[in-house]
Structure formats: structure tokens, C-alpha cells
């Protein structure tokens, strides 16, 4: 068996909201192998976002182990987490999260800036990433000049430009119409199959989750395989 890219053991996370402690995650166990496409489903309030934040190294668990690509993230400081997000993880968000009033090209360049890539190389890689997404003619467009599908493809280009080992997609089709949704999912399938990109998809739409090889349900803070 290959070493898992993601290795999670007995993960716990609680947070306090309006004075009430919410135990969002109560002992999550999950292994994701390199090249796998996993969908995590669950009703709203099931802890999907909390899990997503921890998987994306945006937050740290209260208890339990999380190894990403062999690195123990529970022992990392904020700078190391930032570096890990930069190198290992590509984010695709429901609301695209493109930098406002910033061109598509500059958006895609941003992670490379924090990776310390030089200007010329940065521009070249960002352009290539956008061209691969079929956006070669949209380099100078601002987010508000792009359609939903285009904006999400810019976000995917930005997620992949640092060649991460994990693509983390949080409801990537939540803000687009059906046709665009189909297009984006086809793109993710293609990236998974042709480039062997590991994808963890978080969604509440069953037909979107269908694209994954493995579907998991988050219920009461625990993961279970779909029956």
C-alpha cells in the first residue's frame, strides 16, 4: 500500500459560538492516497467547513494527528503552515475568492509571489496556467468582468500554479449554473485522471459527489463511508 498523502487520526475540533461550545469534529479518521479523488458530503452544520479548514491548514485541530505528505501539521507554527498552504495545497472556493480589482493574471501570480518566484518566471507560469484553463484571452480581465465559470477556472489556475500535491475544493459548483457546473466537474475529472492530481471535494450535492472515486459522509462530527 502506498503511503497516504493525507493521514488523519482521531481528529477533534471544538469551537465556541455565542458562548456555546460546538464539538464540530469528534474523532475523524481519514486516509487519502496520492491520485485519489474523494468527496466529503454532509448537511450544513455537519462540520464540513471546520474539516475543510483543518485539511487546508488554515486552522489546527484541538486533538489528533494530521500528516500531510509526511509532515505533521499539528507541530507547525503559522509561518510553516503558510508555506505548506503555498506549496502543498491548492484551494478552490465556492465564491471563487479572487482578489478584487486584480487581473486574472495577477491573481494567478499571487501564490508564486509568496513562493518567492522571480517576476519573469512568475508571469510565464501564471500565463501558462491560465492558458491551460482556456483563458489565454482573459489575462488582463478583472474578476467582475468574468463569468462565474471563467472566474472559477481562474481560481483553479491559481490553485494549481504552485503544483500542489492536494487540490481542496469547497463547494466549487455552488455559485454557478448547471452547465458551468458540468464544465467545472469535467475539468476536475480531467485533472485527476490525466495528471493524477489528488482532490478532496467538499459538497452537499450528490450528483457532484458522483464524480469522486470515494464518497464519505460527515455526520455528527464523524466520517462514514457511504452505504
Amino acid at each position: 500500500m502506498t503511503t497516504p498523502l493525507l493521514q488523519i487520526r482521531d481528529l477533534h475540533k471544538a469551537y465556541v459560538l455565542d458562548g456555546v461550545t460546538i464539538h464540530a469534529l469528534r474523532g475523524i479518521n481519514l486516509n487519502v492516497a496520492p491520485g485519489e479523488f474523494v468527496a466529503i458530503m454532509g448537511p450544513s452544520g455537519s462540520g464540513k467547513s471546520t474539516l475543510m479548514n483543518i485539511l487546508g491548514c488554515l486552522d489546527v485541530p484541538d486533538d489528533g494527528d494530521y500528516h500531510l505528505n509526511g509532515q505533521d501539521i499539528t507541530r507547525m507554527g503559522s509561518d510553516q503552515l503558510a508555506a505548506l498552504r503555498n506549496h502543498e495545497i491548492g484551494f478552490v472556493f465556492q465564491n471563487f475568492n479572487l482578489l478584487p480589482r486584480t487581473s486574472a493574471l495577477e491573481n494567478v501570480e499571487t501564490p508564486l509571489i509568496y513562493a518567492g518566484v522571480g517576476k519573469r518566471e512568475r508571469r510565464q507560469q501564471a500565463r501558462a496556467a491560465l492558458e491551460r484553463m482556456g483563458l489565454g484571452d482573459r489575462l488582463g480581465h478583472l474578476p467582475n468582468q468574468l463569468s462565474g465559470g471563467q472566474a472559477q477556472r481562474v481560481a483553479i489556475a491559481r490553485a494549481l500554479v504552485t503544483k500542489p500535491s492536494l487540490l481542496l475544493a469547497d463547494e466549487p459548483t455552488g455559485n454557478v449554473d448547471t452547465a458551468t457546473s458540468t464544465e467545472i466537474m469535467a475539468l476536475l475529472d480531467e485533472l485527476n485522471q490525466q495528471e493524477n492530481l489528488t482532490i478532496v471535494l467538499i459538497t452537499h450535492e450528490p450528483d457532484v459527489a458522483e464524480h469522486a472515486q470515494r464518497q464519505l459522509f460527515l455526520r455528527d462530527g464523524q466520517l462514514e463511508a457511504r452505504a
Partner: protein
Amino acid sequence: MNWTTALQLSLRALGRNKTRAMLTALGVVIGVGSVIAMLGIGSGAQQRIAEQLASMGTNSLVVRPGSVTRGGVRTGAGGITTLTRDDADAIAELVDVLAVAPSVRTTAQVRYRGTNWGTAIEGVTPDHVTVRSWPLAEGEFFTRRHVLGASHVCVLGQAVARELFGLRSPLNESIVIKGLACQVIGVLTEKGATAWGTDQDDAVFMPITTVQRKLLGITHIERIEVTAVDREASFRLLKEIKSLLRQRHRIREGQSDDFRMYNRAELAQTSEESARVFTWLLGSIASVSLLVGGIGIMNIMLVSVTERTREIGIRMALGARQRDILWQFLLEALVLSTAGGVLGIFLGLGGALAVARFSALPVTVTPVSVLVAFLFAGLVGVFFGLHPARKASRLRPIEALRYE
């Protein structure tokens, strides 16, 4: 992330909101501009005062006859006649003395043909020109020989020349002073009023001997102006002259002086001190506006951090470290303050020039004041930019990302 990239990010962020950036920088522009202009006006005034003091003789002190009590009656100042030109010569021998100018003074009607003018007649020696650093406009000053011979010559102040001769040159003309015909051999340049309002140009200067013997019929003198080699020396001289004159006038222990002295250096110090205070005052008032400009930067940066919370979250998700965010916002504040500083320098220079042109005030903008104002602006940027930048960098990524 290297410096140029960080700077580019900041410039781009500022460029997205140009009006706001310009208005924010405007506070610093006005602050730096007013600091430079105010310091310019202040040091100009300081310089003007220094010049006036120099023309008055800053390192000089004045000896005058004192009062004396005879049979219970105290005469006023200058009531005794013990001060002589020999005293002046003795003072001139002292080491710290640069020049000595004894003088007597009276007032008289001065006549020239049909016109006349009441003015001060000052009996002085040729050293007078040096002591009061007062050059001639035309002709020349009388010489030692004129003094020895008690010659009937005189040098006119500008006001007297104007009153008696109008626009014509008074040189070699003869004027009559108390029945004495005197030849005009020189005219002094315009000097203006003293600090206490006497028109210095309204006077006629004659050899001291001529005034003593032919106008007043006296042998004593009324005033000795002593120029010390420097300001320190002027303070030493006060004591030296005191003991010298007491000895010469055979004043016994316990008896009071028959002369009085005052030191112009003291006056000079006071004036210079007040000019400095004036400069500081202007500078501090202007600094307040720079401070207000800085608070404007902080205000806008705080608003900007709140507005861009989501952007900060996105950047953090994409791999920005806390210090990357800190530097981005700090650099934005610094760019605003230094750009404001540069524009403020021009505004300050322009303002100083305008003040110099439209008022009689001299204005001197020194490179030091420009540098200080600019550095102060930079400091303001760092100081007021640091808090918003820290606030931005300490946002938690998940909260920033979810911020609506």
C-alpha cells in the same frame, strides 16, 4: 518575498483607490509643507535679528557717566564729568578690546541755505564706522587728523541729508550748526531704526573734539562704546573696565562707581533666544498638522484593513505569512507618508517663497529642516502604519476568509 515585489504590491493596492490615497497623503503633504515653511520663516526671522544685532554691535558694551551724590542731592545719570577720552584710551589698551568709540551728543538746528532741520549731533571718532559696522554711501568719514585738529567737517545720516538736500548730493556743501559752518565730507548708508525706535539715520556726525570744544565747551565725554573681540570677552570686559575706571577715577573701596555700564551682548542673547523660541513655536505648531496627517493615515489604513479583511484571508490561504501581510500594509502607509513628504517639500518651498515674496519677512529654508521634515514624515508613516499593519497580519485566516 523581496522588497521590490512587496513595494509593487503596495503601490498596486494604493493605485486601486487613487482618490483615497491622494487625500490621505494630502494630510502629510500639508504637514510637511507647513513644517518646512514655518521653520523657514522662523530661521529667516532669526537671521534678520542676528543681522540687526550685528549692525548694532553684538559684542559691544557701553560705558556712561554715573550719578553722584553731593550734599544729599543725587544727580541723574550722566550728571558727572569724570569720564574722559583718556579713560577711553586706557580701555583700548585692554586685551579683550577690539575697538573703542568715545562720543558726546547734543541736539541742534542744522541750517543749509533756506532750510533747517533739528537733529542729533554726535561727536565721535573715526572708529565709529567700525564699531557700528556702518558703511558710507558716499564721500568718506573724517580721520584722526580731523579729530586732532577739531576740524569743521561733518558726515550726515541719510535722514538729515534727505531733509536738507533732497535728492542733491550734499558732498562738499557747507551747513551751519549752532553758528559753526561745517563742510559735509560724507553721507552714511541707511541704517533704519534701532530696536527701541530711534531713527539712527537722523543724526549728524562730527569729530568728537569739534563737538566738545566748539559746540558744547566741555572736556568730558558722555559715552564710550567698547567692542570686545567676542561675546565671551564682552562679559569679562564688564569686570575689567569696572576695576580699571575705579582705579583711574580713584574711587575708594566702599564708594560707588561714577559710571554705568551695560552689555549689549545680554540684549543680543535675549533677542536670539526669543527668536529661537519663536522658531520652535512655529515648528511645533506645524508639527501638529503633520501629526494629524499621520492620524489620517492610520485612520484610512484601519478602514482599509477592515475592508480588505477578505483579501487578507485569501492571501493567507495562498501562502502569505504574517510578516508578508505586515509589510504590505506597512509599506502602503510608508508610501503614503513618504510620497506626501516629497510633495510636502515642494509645497513648503513654494509656501516659503510666497511668504518671502509677499511679506518683508526673510525666509531661509535650510536643507536640514527639509531633511528633518521628511524623516519625520517617514517616522509618522511607520508609527501610524504599524498598528493597522499588525492588526492585518494577526487576523486568523479562517475568520478573514469568511468575513463578509
